[in-house]
Protein backbone atom coordinates (compact mmCIF):
# COMPACT_ATOMS: atom_id res chain seq x y z
CA UNK A 1 0.00 0.00 0.00
CA UNK A 2 2.79 2.38 0.99
CA UNK A 3 4.72 1.48 -2.11
CA UNK A 4 1.69 2.21 -4.24
CA UNK A 5 1.22 5.54 -2.54
CA UNK A 6 4.86 6.47 -3.07
CA UNK A 7 4.62 5.40 -6.67
CA UNK A 8 1.50 7.48 -7.23
CA UNK A 9 3.10 10.41 -5.52
CA UNK A 10 6.21 10.21 -7.68
CA UNK A 11 4.10 9.85 -10.83
CA UNK A 12 1.86 12.78 -10.00
CA UNK A 13 4.86 14.89 -9.11
CA UNK A 14 6.73 14.13 -12.27
CA UNK A 15 3.66 15.39 -14.08
CA UNK A 16 3.85 18.52 -12.02
CA UNK A 17 7.27 19.29 -13.45
CA UNK A 18 9.50 17.12 -11.26
CA UNK A 19 11.82 15.34 -13.67
CA UNK A 20 13.80 12.30 -12.60
CA UNK A 21 17.45 12.87 -11.80
CA UNK A 22 17.16 16.52 -10.75
CA UNK A 23 20.24 18.33 -9.59
CA UNK A 24 20.27 19.21 -5.91
CA UNK A 25 22.86 21.56 -4.43
CA UNK A 26 23.27 21.80 -0.68
CA UNK A 27 25.10 24.36 1.43
CA UNK A 28 24.05 24.28 5.05
CA UNK A 29 26.23 25.75 7.82
CA UNK A 30 25.34 22.87 10.12
CA UNK A 31 28.10 20.40 11.06
CA UNK A 32 27.36 17.21 9.17
CA UNK A 33 28.95 14.44 7.15
CA UNK A 34 28.27 14.84 3.41
CA UNK A 35 27.85 11.09 2.86
CA UNK A 36 25.18 10.76 5.51
CA UNK A 37 23.19 13.70 4.19
CA UNK A 38 23.46 12.53 0.57
CA UNK A 39 22.15 9.14 1.63
CA UNK A 40 19.24 10.68 3.51
CA UNK A 41 18.31 12.89 0.58
CA UNK A 42 18.53 10.04 -1.90
CA UNK A 43 16.37 7.88 0.35
CA UNK A 44 13.45 10.23 -0.21
CA UNK A 45 11.22 8.90 -3.02
CA UNK A 46 11.13 12.37 -4.57
CA UNK A 47 14.90 12.60 -4.68
CA UNK A 48 15.76 8.94 -5.20
CA UNK A 49 17.45 9.63 -8.51
CA UNK A 50 18.56 13.14 -7.74
CA UNK A 51 22.14 14.11 -8.35
CA UNK A 52 23.02 15.54 -4.93
CA UNK A 53 26.06 17.75 -4.41
CA UNK A 54 26.95 18.86 -0.91
CA UNK A 55 29.18 21.87 -0.35
CA UNK A 56 31.02 22.78 2.83
CA UNK A 57 31.68 26.32 1.68
CA UNK A 58 29.22 28.89 0.32
CA UNK A 59 31.65 30.01 -2.39
CA UNK A 60 31.98 26.45 -3.72
CA UNK A 61 28.20 26.16 -3.97
CA UNK A 62 28.02 29.48 -5.79
CA UNK A 63 30.85 28.58 -8.14
CA UNK A 64 29.16 25.30 -9.10
CA UNK A 65 25.80 27.05 -9.42
CA UNK A 66 27.21 29.81 -11.64
CA UNK A 67 27.84 27.44 -14.54
CA UNK A 68 24.47 25.71 -14.25
CA UNK A 69 21.99 26.45 -11.47
CA UNK A 70 20.79 23.48 -9.42
CA UNK A 71 17.11 22.71 -9.88
CA UNK A 72 16.70 22.33 -6.14
CA UNK A 73 18.91 23.87 -3.46
CA UNK A 74 18.97 23.52 0.29
CA UNK A 75 20.30 26.69 1.82
CA UNK A 76 20.17 28.80 4.97
CA UNK A 77 17.48 31.47 5.30
CA UNK A 78 20.10 34.19 4.83
CA UNK A 79 20.73 33.00 1.28
CA UNK A 80 17.38 34.31 0.09
CA UNK A 81 17.96 37.68 1.73
CA UNK A 82 21.36 38.27 0.14
CA UNK A 83 21.06 36.53 -3.22
CA UNK A 84 18.46 36.54 -5.97
CA UNK A 85 19.24 33.36 -7.93
CA UNK A 86 17.13 30.94 -5.85
CA UNK A 87 13.59 31.21 -4.51
CA UNK A 88 12.46 29.75 -1.18
CA UNK A 89 9.87 27.00 -1.61
CA UNK A 90 9.64 24.99 1.57
CA UNK A 91 10.69 26.22 4.98
CA UNK A 92 12.34 23.55 7.12
CA UNK A 93 11.38 23.25 10.77
CA UNK A 94 13.18 22.07 13.88
CA UNK A 95 12.30 18.63 15.22
CA UNK A 96 9.94 20.33 17.67
CA UNK A 97 8.24 22.29 14.87
CA UNK A 98 9.85 25.71 15.34
CA UNK A 99 10.33 27.89 12.28
CA UNK A 100 13.14 29.95 13.69
CA UNK A 101 16.06 29.63 16.06
CA UNK A 102 18.47 31.85 17.92
CA UNK A 103 22.23 31.53 17.61
CA UNK A 104 24.12 31.08 20.84
CA UNK A 105 27.22 33.05 21.70
CA UNK A 106 29.55 30.52 23.26
CA UNK A 107 32.85 31.00 25.05
CA UNK A 108 35.29 29.33 27.45
CA UNK A 109 34.74 32.20 29.87
CA UNK A 110 31.61 33.07 31.79
CA UNK A 111 31.71 36.71 30.78
CA UNK A 112 32.45 38.30 27.44
CA UNK A 113 35.15 40.93 27.54
CA UNK A 114 33.93 44.33 26.35
CA UNK A 115 34.37 44.60 22.59
CA UNK A 116 34.71 40.83 22.29
CA UNK A 117 35.48 39.17 18.97
CA UNK A 118 33.17 36.49 17.64
CA UNK A 119 33.83 33.71 15.15
CA UNK A 120 31.11 33.13 12.55
CA UNK A 121 30.55 30.78 9.63
CA UNK A 122 30.57 32.66 6.33
CA UNK A 123 27.05 31.75 5.26
CA UNK A 124 26.82 35.00 3.33
CA UNK A 125 29.63 36.55 1.27
CA UNK A 126 32.45 38.16 3.21
CA UNK A 127 31.24 41.56 2.05
CA UNK A 128 27.83 41.04 3.69
CA UNK A 129 29.07 39.28 6.79
CA UNK A 130 29.04 42.30 9.08
CA UNK A 131 25.52 43.24 8.05
CA UNK A 132 24.28 39.67 8.48
CA UNK A 133 25.88 39.42 11.92
CA UNK A 134 23.97 42.52 13.04
CA UNK A 135 20.74 40.81 11.95
CA UNK A 136 21.33 37.61 13.87
CA UNK A 137 23.26 39.06 16.80
CA UNK A 138 22.71 42.75 17.36
CA UNK A 139 24.94 42.69 20.44
CA UNK A 140 27.89 41.15 18.57
CA UNK A 141 30.72 43.40 17.47
CA UNK A 142 33.89 42.44 15.69
CA UNK A 143 33.70 39.27 13.69
CA UNK A 144 36.12 36.80 12.16
CA UNK A 145 34.78 34.50 9.48
CA UNK A 146 35.42 30.85 8.83
CA UNK A 147 34.36 29.05 5.65
CA UNK A 148 33.31 25.64 6.96
CA UNK A 149 30.92 24.84 9.80
CA UNK A 150 33.21 22.14 11.10
CA UNK A 151 36.06 24.64 11.55
CA UNK A 152 34.05 27.10 13.63
CA UNK A 153 34.74 25.62 17.05
CA UNK A 154 38.46 25.39 16.27
CA UNK A 155 38.58 29.18 16.00
CA UNK A 156 37.61 29.33 19.65
CA UNK A 157 39.80 26.40 20.68
CA UNK A 158 42.83 27.91 18.92
CA UNK A 159 42.35 31.25 20.64
CA UNK A 160 41.55 33.17 17.48
CA UNK A 161 38.33 34.67 18.92
CA UNK A 162 36.77 35.32 22.35
CA UNK A 163 33.51 33.59 21.42
CA UNK A 164 31.76 31.82 18.56
CA UNK A 165 28.28 32.25 17.17
CA UNK A 166 26.73 28.79 16.96
CA UNK A 167 23.34 27.43 16.04
CA UNK A 168 21.79 25.19 18.73
CA UNK A 169 22.26 22.27 16.30
CA UNK A 170 26.01 22.95 15.97
CA UNK A 171 26.30 23.51 19.71
CA UNK A 172 25.04 19.99 20.36
CA UNK A 173 27.63 18.55 17.95
CA UNK A 174 30.40 20.62 19.51
CA UNK A 175 29.46 19.49 23.01
CA UNK A 176 29.54 15.86 21.88
CA UNK A 177 32.99 16.23 20.35
CA UNK A 178 34.69 18.42 22.92
CA UNK A 179 35.46 17.81 26.57
CA UNK A 180 35.95 21.53 27.23
CA UNK A 181 33.71 23.51 29.56
CA UNK A 182 31.64 25.89 27.46
CA UNK A 183 29.45 28.77 28.51
CA UNK A 184 26.56 30.32 26.63
CA UNK A 185 27.05 34.05 27.13
CA UNK A 186 23.73 35.04 25.60
CA UNK A 187 21.39 34.27 22.71
CA UNK A 188 21.23 36.14 19.43
CA UNK A 189 18.21 37.41 17.52
CA UNK A 190 15.72 35.11 15.78
CA UNK A 191 16.72 33.70 12.40
CA UNK A 192 14.64 31.38 10.22
CA UNK A 193 15.72 27.81 9.78
CA UNK A 194 17.07 26.74 6.37
CA UNK A 195 14.76 26.21 3.41
CA UNK A 196 14.41 24.16 0.28
CA UNK A 197 14.88 26.55 -2.63
CA UNK A 198 14.40 26.20 -6.37
CA UNK A 199 16.28 28.02 -9.11
CA UNK A 200 14.61 31.29 -10.07
CA UNK A 201 12.07 30.70 -12.83
CA UNK A 202 11.78 27.00 -12.08
CA UNK A 203 8.33 25.37 -12.15
CA UNK A 204 9.15 22.50 -9.78
CA UNK A 205 6.23 21.80 -7.46
CA UNK A 206 5.41 19.30 -4.78
CA UNK A 207 8.51 19.78 -2.64
CA UNK A 208 6.33 20.01 0.46
CA UNK A 209 5.82 16.28 -0.01
CA UNK A 210 9.43 15.51 0.87
CA UNK A 211 9.50 13.07 3.78
CA UNK A 212 9.90 14.50 7.25
CA UNK A 213 12.89 12.21 7.94
CA UNK A 214 14.85 13.34 4.87
CA UNK A 215 16.49 16.17 6.77
CA UNK A 216 17.08 14.24 9.98
CA UNK A 217 20.91 14.46 9.67
CA UNK A 218 20.44 18.22 10.05
CA UNK A 219 17.94 17.93 12.86
CA UNK A 220 15.28 19.41 10.56
CA UNK A 221 12.02 18.35 9.00
CA UNK A 222 9.85 19.56 6.15
CA UNK A 223 7.45 22.34 7.01
CA UNK A 224 4.70 24.09 5.11
CA UNK A 225 5.33 25.10 1.52
CA UNK A 226 5.16 28.59 0.14
Amino acid sequence: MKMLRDLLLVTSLSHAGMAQGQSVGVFIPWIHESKELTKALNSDPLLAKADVMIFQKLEDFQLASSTKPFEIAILPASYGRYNADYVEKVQLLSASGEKSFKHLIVSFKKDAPPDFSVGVIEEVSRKNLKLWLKEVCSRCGKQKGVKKAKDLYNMLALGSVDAVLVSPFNFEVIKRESAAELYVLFSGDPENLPSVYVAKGSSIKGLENLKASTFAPLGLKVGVGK
Partner: protein
Amino acid sequence: MKKTLVMLVLLLSNFGQAADVVVIRPDVEDFRKLNEMVAQSLSNDYTLETALIAKSISYEEFQEKIVKSGARVVVAMDNQAIRHLKHYFELNPQSKLRGIAAMGVNLKDLIPKNKYIAGVAYEVAGYLAVKGFKATTDTKMKSLLGIYRSSVSRILAEEAQVQLSREKIDLKLVDIEDVSDDALNATIERELKKIKPDAIWLMNDNKIINSRTLSTLWLNVARQQKVPIICGIQKLAKELGICVYSETPALQGIAEKISSIIFGYIADEHDADFYGVEYIQDTEKTTNKYLLDSMGVTSLKQIEGVEVYSGKIQGG
Protein backbone atom coordinates in the same frame (compact mmCIF):
# COMPACT_ATOMS: atom_id res chain seq x y z
CA MET B 1 66.94 64.53 0.47
CA LYS B 2 67.57 62.92 -2.90
CA LYS B 3 66.23 59.63 -1.55
CA THR B 4 63.03 61.29 -0.31
CA LEU B 5 62.57 62.91 -3.66
CA VAL B 6 62.95 59.60 -5.47
CA MET B 7 60.38 58.03 -3.16
CA LEU B 8 57.98 60.89 -3.73
CA VAL B 9 58.31 60.56 -7.49
CA LEU B 10 57.77 56.83 -7.22
CA LEU B 11 54.69 57.36 -5.10
CA LEU B 12 53.22 59.95 -7.41
CA SER B 13 53.92 57.92 -10.51
CA ASN B 14 51.71 55.23 -9.06
CA PHE B 15 49.02 57.56 -7.85
CA GLY B 16 45.57 56.37 -8.76
CA GLN B 17 46.65 53.03 -10.10
CA ALA B 18 48.24 51.33 -7.13
CA ALA B 19 47.04 47.84 -6.29
CA ASP B 20 45.37 47.36 -2.90
CA VAL B 21 47.71 44.54 -1.99
CA VAL B 22 51.29 43.71 -2.88
CA VAL B 23 52.70 40.23 -2.36
CA ILE B 24 56.46 40.32 -1.96
CA ARG B 25 57.96 36.87 -2.34
CA PRO B 26 60.76 34.76 -3.78
CA ASP B 27 60.03 32.88 -6.97
CA VAL B 28 59.22 29.49 -5.44
CA GLU B 29 56.51 27.09 -6.65
CA ASP B 30 54.47 26.87 -3.43
CA PHE B 31 54.62 30.63 -2.95
CA ARG B 32 53.44 31.15 -6.52
CA LYS B 33 50.49 28.82 -5.98
CA LEU B 34 49.58 30.51 -2.71
CA ASN B 35 49.86 33.92 -4.39
CA GLU B 36 47.42 32.80 -7.07
CA MET B 37 44.95 31.45 -4.54
CA VAL B 38 44.97 34.73 -2.60
CA ALA B 39 44.52 36.72 -5.81
CA GLN B 40 41.61 34.53 -6.83
CA SER B 41 39.96 34.79 -3.45
CA LEU B 42 40.18 38.60 -3.58
CA SER B 43 39.38 38.97 -7.26
CA ASN B 44 35.94 40.49 -6.83
CA ASP B 45 36.97 42.91 -4.14
CA TYR B 46 40.60 44.03 -4.24
CA THR B 47 43.47 44.27 -6.68
CA LEU B 48 46.74 42.51 -6.04
CA GLU B 49 50.17 42.73 -7.56
CA THR B 50 53.23 40.60 -7.07
CA ALA B 51 56.82 41.70 -6.55
CA LEU B 52 59.36 38.92 -6.95
CA ILE B 53 62.52 39.09 -4.90
CA ALA B 54 65.72 37.12 -4.44
CA LYS B 55 65.75 35.11 -1.20
CA SER B 56 68.74 37.16 -0.04
CA ILE B 57 67.20 40.56 -0.81
CA SER B 58 68.60 43.53 1.09
CA TYR B 59 66.42 45.72 3.27
CA GLU B 60 66.79 48.70 0.92
CA GLU B 61 65.60 46.70 -2.06
CA PHE B 62 62.69 45.32 -0.06
CA GLN B 63 61.64 48.77 1.09
CA GLU B 64 61.72 50.00 -2.47
CA LYS B 65 59.28 47.28 -3.49
CA ILE B 66 56.85 48.45 -0.80
CA VAL B 67 57.13 52.10 -1.70
CA LYS B 68 56.92 51.46 -5.42
CA SER B 69 53.75 49.42 -5.08
CA GLY B 70 51.78 52.08 -3.24
CA ALA B 71 49.66 49.26 -1.79
CA ARG B 72 47.71 49.41 1.45
CA VAL B 73 48.57 45.87 2.50
CA VAL B 74 51.88 44.04 2.11
CA VAL B 75 52.01 40.25 2.20
CA ALA B 76 55.57 39.08 2.83
CA MET B 77 56.45 35.45 2.18
CA ASP B 78 59.61 33.74 3.45
CA ASN B 79 61.55 34.52 6.63
CA GLN B 80 63.96 37.05 5.11
CA ALA B 81 61.12 39.12 3.62
CA ILE B 82 59.25 38.89 6.93
CA ARG B 83 62.28 40.17 8.86
CA HIS B 84 62.53 43.11 6.47
CA LEU B 85 58.83 43.85 6.90
CA LYS B 86 59.27 43.92 10.68
CA HIS B 87 62.18 46.29 10.24
CA TYR B 88 60.13 48.50 7.94
CA PHE B 89 57.58 49.12 10.69
CA GLU B 90 60.29 49.70 13.29
CA LEU B 91 61.55 52.50 11.07
CA ASN B 92 58.07 53.76 10.09
CA PRO B 93 55.86 53.58 13.17
CA GLN B 94 53.47 56.15 11.68
CA SER B 95 52.84 54.06 8.59
CA LYS B 96 49.23 53.40 7.64
CA LEU B 97 50.35 50.31 5.76
CA ARG B 98 49.52 46.92 7.25
CA GLY B 99 51.46 43.71 6.79
CA ILE B 100 50.85 39.99 6.72
CA ALA B 101 53.60 37.42 7.23
CA ALA B 102 53.22 34.00 5.66
CA MET B 103 55.25 30.96 4.66
CA GLY B 104 57.80 31.63 7.36
CA VAL B 105 59.04 29.29 10.06
CA ASN B 106 57.83 29.73 13.64
CA LEU B 107 56.02 33.02 13.11
CA LYS B 108 54.22 32.57 16.44
CA ASP B 109 57.57 33.10 18.14
CA LEU B 110 58.94 35.56 15.60
CA ILE B 111 56.04 38.05 15.61
CA PRO B 112 54.53 38.97 18.97
CA LYS B 113 51.13 40.66 18.75
CA ASN B 114 51.55 44.16 17.34
CA LYS B 115 49.67 46.85 15.47
CA TYR B 116 51.38 46.42 12.09
CA ILE B 117 51.98 42.80 11.13
CA ALA B 118 49.64 39.86 11.48
CA GLY B 119 50.57 36.45 10.21
CA VAL B 120 49.53 32.95 9.33
CA ALA B 121 51.43 30.19 11.11
CA TYR B 122 52.89 27.49 8.90
CA GLU B 123 53.01 25.03 11.77
CA VAL B 124 49.78 23.17 12.49
CA ALA B 125 48.59 23.72 16.07
CA GLY B 126 49.23 20.80 18.41
CA TYR B 127 45.61 20.99 19.48
CA LEU B 128 44.43 20.46 15.91
CA ALA B 129 46.82 17.58 15.16
CA VAL B 130 46.03 15.74 18.37
CA LYS B 131 42.30 16.25 18.00
CA GLY B 132 42.53 15.06 14.41
CA PHE B 133 44.38 11.92 15.44
CA LYS B 134 41.87 11.26 18.20
CA ALA B 135 38.91 11.63 15.87
CA THR B 136 40.46 9.47 13.15
CA THR B 137 41.41 6.60 15.40
CA ASP B 138 38.64 6.97 17.96
CA THR B 139 41.26 6.42 20.66
CA LYS B 140 41.27 7.77 24.18
CA MET B 141 44.00 10.24 24.88
CA LYS B 142 44.85 11.38 28.36
CA SER B 143 48.55 12.12 28.31
CA LEU B 144 50.81 13.35 25.59
CA LEU B 145 54.54 13.99 25.43
CA GLY B 146 55.56 17.05 23.43
CA ILE B 147 59.16 17.53 22.31
CA TYR B 148 60.26 21.08 21.52
CA ARG B 149 63.08 23.59 21.72
CA SER B 150 62.21 26.76 23.60
CA SER B 151 64.26 29.05 21.36
CA VAL B 152 62.37 27.78 18.30
CA SER B 153 58.78 26.94 19.19
CA ARG B 154 58.03 27.95 22.74
CA ILE B 155 54.71 29.61 21.95
CA LEU B 156 53.55 26.79 19.68
CA ALA B 157 54.28 24.34 22.51
CA GLU B 158 52.79 26.37 25.33
CA GLU B 159 49.62 27.27 23.45
CA ALA B 160 49.08 23.60 22.67
CA GLN B 161 49.40 22.84 26.38
CA VAL B 162 46.68 25.33 27.29
CA GLN B 163 44.40 24.36 24.41
CA LEU B 164 44.72 20.62 25.05
CA SER B 165 44.22 20.98 28.79
CA ARG B 166 40.73 22.35 28.07
CA GLU B 167 40.08 19.03 26.33
CA LYS B 168 41.37 17.20 29.42
CA ILE B 169 44.54 16.10 27.65
CA ASP B 170 47.69 16.54 29.67
CA LEU B 171 50.57 17.66 27.46
CA LYS B 172 53.91 17.20 29.17
CA LEU B 173 56.49 19.34 27.41
CA VAL B 174 60.16 18.45 27.20
CA ASP B 175 62.44 21.32 26.21
CA ILE B 176 65.55 19.94 24.55
CA GLU B 177 67.23 23.34 24.21
CA ASP B 178 70.13 22.36 26.43
CA VAL B 179 70.15 18.66 25.67
CA SER B 180 73.12 17.63 23.54
CA ASP B 181 72.57 15.41 20.51
CA ASP B 182 74.33 12.57 22.32
CA ALA B 183 72.06 12.82 25.34
CA LEU B 184 68.82 13.22 23.36
CA ASN B 185 67.97 9.53 23.01
CA ALA B 186 68.45 8.86 26.71
CA THR B 187 66.37 11.91 27.65
CA ILE B 188 63.46 10.81 25.51
CA GLU B 189 63.69 7.20 26.73
CA ARG B 190 63.63 8.41 30.32
CA GLU B 191 60.57 10.61 29.76
CA LEU B 192 58.75 7.81 27.96
CA LYS B 193 59.32 5.46 30.88
CA LYS B 194 58.32 8.08 33.42
CA ILE B 195 55.16 9.40 31.76
CA LYS B 196 54.03 6.46 29.63
CA PRO B 197 52.21 8.83 27.29
CA ASP B 198 49.41 7.75 24.96
CA ALA B 199 51.25 9.50 22.13
CA ILE B 200 54.18 11.79 21.31
CA TRP B 201 53.88 15.08 19.47
CA LEU B 202 56.98 16.21 17.59
CA MET B 203 57.35 19.82 16.58
CA ASN B 204 59.03 20.62 13.27
CA ASP B 205 62.59 21.43 14.29
CA ASN B 206 65.77 20.09 12.76
CA LYS B 207 67.20 19.33 16.16
CA ILE B 208 64.24 17.04 16.84
CA ILE B 209 63.72 15.57 13.39
CA ASN B 210 66.86 14.82 11.40
CA SER B 211 68.35 11.75 9.74
CA ARG B 212 70.13 10.74 12.92
CA THR B 213 67.14 11.01 15.28
CA LEU B 214 64.90 9.34 12.71
CA SER B 215 67.08 6.25 12.40
CA THR B 216 68.34 5.94 15.98
CA LEU B 217 65.43 7.24 18.01
CA TRP B 218 62.02 7.78 16.44
CA LEU B 219 62.06 4.62 14.34
CA ASN B 220 62.59 2.60 17.49
CA VAL B 221 59.95 4.52 19.44
CA ALA B 222 57.38 4.00 16.66
CA ARG B 223 58.15 0.44 15.59
CA GLN B 224 59.59 -1.32 18.66
CA GLN B 225 58.02 0.58 21.53
CA LYS B 226 54.88 1.14 19.47
CA VAL B 227 54.22 4.62 20.79
CA PRO B 228 52.07 6.64 18.34
CA ILE B 229 53.97 9.66 17.02
CA ILE B 230 52.03 12.67 15.75
CA CYS B 231 54.00 15.08 13.59
CA GLY B 232 53.89 17.76 10.91
CA ILE B 233 55.76 16.03 8.08
CA GLN B 234 53.60 14.02 5.73
CA LYS B 235 56.42 11.84 4.40
CA LEU B 236 56.98 10.50 7.91
CA ALA B 237 53.38 9.34 8.04
CA LYS B 238 53.65 7.76 4.61
CA GLU B 239 56.50 5.69 3.20
CA LEU B 240 58.92 6.40 6.04
CA GLY B 241 56.46 4.87 8.47
CA ILE B 242 57.44 6.77 11.61
CA CYS B 243 54.52 9.03 12.39
CA VAL B 244 51.18 7.33 12.81
CA TYR B 245 49.48 10.62 11.94
CA SER B 246 50.55 13.87 10.36
CA GLU B 247 48.87 17.18 9.80
CA THR B 248 50.41 19.65 7.40
CA PRO B 249 49.14 23.00 6.16
CA ALA B 250 46.96 23.07 3.05
CA LEU B 251 47.91 26.04 0.85
CA GLN B 252 44.21 26.77 0.38
CA GLY B 253 43.85 27.14 4.14
CA ILE B 254 46.74 29.60 4.29
CA ALA B 255 45.31 31.55 1.34
CA GLU B 256 41.92 31.84 3.03
CA LYS B 257 43.48 33.17 6.22
CA ILE B 258 45.56 35.70 4.31
CA SER B 259 42.62 36.98 2.32
CA SER B 260 40.41 37.23 5.36
CA ILE B 261 43.05 39.34 7.13
CA ILE B 262 43.37 41.56 4.03
CA PHE B 263 39.61 41.98 4.10
CA GLY B 264 39.71 42.79 7.81
CA TYR B 265 42.40 45.42 7.28
CA ILE B 266 40.70 47.19 4.38
CA ALA B 267 36.95 46.71 4.88
CA ASP B 268 36.74 46.50 8.66
CA GLU B 269 39.75 48.74 9.39
CA HIS B 270 41.23 46.34 11.90
CA ASP B 271 44.81 46.64 13.05
CA ALA B 272 47.10 43.64 13.02
CA ASP B 273 46.67 42.97 16.74
CA PHE B 274 43.08 41.90 16.05
CA TYR B 275 44.66 38.86 14.39
CA GLY B 276 48.15 38.24 15.71
CA VAL B 277 49.63 35.15 14.11
CA GLU B 278 46.70 32.89 13.34
CA TYR B 279 46.73 29.13 13.11
CA ILE B 280 45.29 27.61 9.97
CA GLN B 281 42.39 25.19 10.20
CA ASP B 282 42.46 23.75 6.72
CA THR B 283 45.09 21.03 6.79
CA GLU B 284 46.16 17.85 5.02
CA LYS B 285 45.77 14.85 7.27
CA THR B 286 47.46 11.50 6.79
CA THR B 287 47.38 8.39 8.90
CA ASN B 288 49.52 5.28 8.49
CA LYS B 289 47.61 2.01 8.36
CA TYR B 290 50.69 -0.20 8.89
CA LEU B 291 51.64 1.54 12.12
CA LEU B 292 48.06 1.63 13.37
CA ASP B 293 47.76 -2.12 12.78
CA SER B 294 51.07 -2.80 14.52
CA MET B 295 49.88 -0.78 17.52
CA GLY B 296 46.65 -2.71 17.65
CA VAL B 297 44.51 0.32 16.79
CA THR B 298 41.58 -1.19 14.95
CA SER B 299 39.08 1.60 15.40
CA LEU B 300 40.20 3.57 12.33
CA LYS B 301 37.32 5.73 11.13
CA GLN B 302 36.79 6.95 7.60
CA ILE B 303 36.78 10.66 8.11
CA GLU B 304 36.32 13.17 5.32
CA GLY B 305 39.64 14.71 4.44
CA VAL B 306 41.90 12.16 6.16
CA GLU B 307 44.12 10.17 3.82
CA VAL B 308 44.76 6.63 5.01
CA TYR B 309 48.19 5.57 3.74
CA SER B 310 48.22 1.82 3.35
CA GLY B 311 51.20 1.47 1.02
CA LYS B 312 54.60 -0.01 1.84
CA ILE B 313 56.78 1.51 4.51
CA GLN B 314 60.54 1.45 4.58
CA GLY B 315 61.85 -1.54 6.54
CA GLY B 316 58.30 -2.63 7.28
